[in-house]
């Protein structure tokens, strides 16, 4: 049982680190919020599952914490993206295809 708990903690730490790396490398606010929300949600859930396996006495509180985080994280990223759109901080390009040559039109 202990090894499964440690494995979950390792997975959670890796995905949290990858979330931070993704936010650093992405060019735009919308891309950054995608990377941050998806990867860090998985990271924190895996960490909490790992903690509850290592310490079964405190597992109801940890599961409640995981539920609370799952409820509140997507709404936070939605609010951030909407605020970024309102301030025109998102320079996303709607219709461009990187495989086209110069002068061709996307139909």
């Amino acid at each position: 049982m202990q090894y499964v708990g440690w494995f979950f903690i390792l997975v959670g730490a890796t995905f949290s680190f990858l979330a931070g790396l993704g936010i650093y490398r992405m060019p735009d606010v919308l891309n950054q919020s995608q990377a941050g929300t998806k990867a860090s949600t998985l990271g924190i859930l895996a960490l909490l599952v790992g903690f509850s396996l290592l310490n079964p006495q405190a597992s109801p509180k940890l599961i409640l914490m995981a539920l609370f985080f799952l409820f509140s994280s997507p709404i936070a990223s939605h609010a951030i993206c909407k605020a970024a759109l309102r301030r025109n901080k998102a320079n996303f390009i709607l219709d461009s295809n990187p495989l086209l040559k110069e002068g061709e039109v996307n139909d």
Partner: protein
Amino acid sequence: MKDEKSLFINIVALLILSFMAFYIYKVSIDTGSGIKITDSITPKMRVADKYLNKNVLNENSTYKFSQTAEDTSANIVTSVVVDYRLFDTTLEVIVLFVTILGFGFVIPKDKRRVKMPSVILYRWAPILMILMLMIGGYMFINGHLSPGGGFPAGAIISTAVLIGVLAGRKTVNHKTLKVVEAVAGISIFAIGIASFFIKGVFFQNFITGDRIGDLFSGGLIPVFYGLIAFKVAAELSNIYFEFYEEC
């Protein structure tokens, strides 16, 4: 004319200061604190004896099931903050009240309509508010058993109201919050004065004989923490309402 007036004021100030210095010296000799001339002078009255009237070895002692004055609740920080030194805590509550009063002077009176945020936030906010109220309520109800207490519980409950305000839902009436805050503040002092008439000491816990570690233990400690939590939550929610309507 100016020189005579300033000379007169200086002489009066010197006289007052000398009187104060003499009085402070006399009081320090009487109470035996601070300035120690010799060790043979026994103090007539000590400030600590008037403030702290806790005797554990007496038959009429308040603390039947505890060894010291810091064992009335399972959480030692709670028993110091709410039972041992409740006077300091009430003064801190007064300081918070004066701060919020200052906020009320700074914020102007013109209010505008705020724009409605998105539908997702409007529909999802009550679920988050329920979770936060649950966490805050748990924290001040179990203030005497686990870490936490009334002050962070009030902050968390006010954060629940903040999420409601940011999502466009105004759940609590403005006037209700002011009434709650005033009633909670008056109740704290009323219970303190009542304990003065019952036990003879201001802010003394007059419900005794409980077992340490129960939910209903510690006498008046959960009651005080609940009142403090409501007061702090109402004050901070008032700030959020006024700030959000103004900016």
